[in-house]
């Protein structure tokens, strides 16, 4: 059993661990639950890209993909958080006193 077989096992485990987050996306009670689950899946995908690079012996190429995916994941979750923050402030649920920027 080489390290590549172990890496394939790690990848399959990561895929199986995405299923609970997927269920949380499907029946999350609020929109923010879904965003958190999407964030979790995105982080797992960045790790999975590194695993794919190890399996195909091209880590130098897939590391860049993983870095870009982590960046996009962070940007997406921050954008969703800011959007829902502003929507809550517009909706009148919270007083509109402190607009950050």
């Amino acid at each position, binding site marked *: 059993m080489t390290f590549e077989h172990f890496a394939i096992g790690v990848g399959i485990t990561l895929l199986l661990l995405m299923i609970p987050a997927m269920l949380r996306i499907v029946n999350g009670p609020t929109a923010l639950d879904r965003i958190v689950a999407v964030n979790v899946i995105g*982080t797992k995908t960045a790790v999975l890209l*590194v695993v794919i690079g190890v399996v195909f012996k091209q880590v130098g190429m897939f*590391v860049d993909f993983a870095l870009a995916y982590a960046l996009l994941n*962070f940007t997406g979750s921050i954008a969703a*958080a800011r959007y829902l923050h502003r929507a*809550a402030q517009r909706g009148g649920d919270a007083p509109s006193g402190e607009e950050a920027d």
Partner: protein
Amino acid sequence: MILTILSVILIVSGLVFFFGAAVGLMRFPDFYSRMHAAGKGDTLSTLLVISGFALYQFRDIHDFSHDWPVLLVVLKLLAIVVFIYLTSPTSTSALADAGWEDGIDPVIEPGRENHLEDDCHRTPPSSPQP
């Protein structure tokens, strides 16, 4: 050989923490506790798994003047680790703030009061706590 064993130990412990994050995301009763499980578990387990793969890359370095591009790959992997270490708590904090402003109420044990209600500027929820 010892590098392989060390990296396998790091990766397997990272997978254990990934499993804990998935179970917490599935079973916790509350948005904030689910976010706690997802944020902490994801940060630590990503750090462990990618550090394990970065440690495994050192196995390919035999002659430094010839194998120095491997060191570049290791540096990129460590850049991913540092980036996720910085950004995952940031996005967790931003999402928790958005959830609080959105009016998601934490599940509180009956008989205890919500102390955060006094600190926050938001209006109290219209419906009483179950």
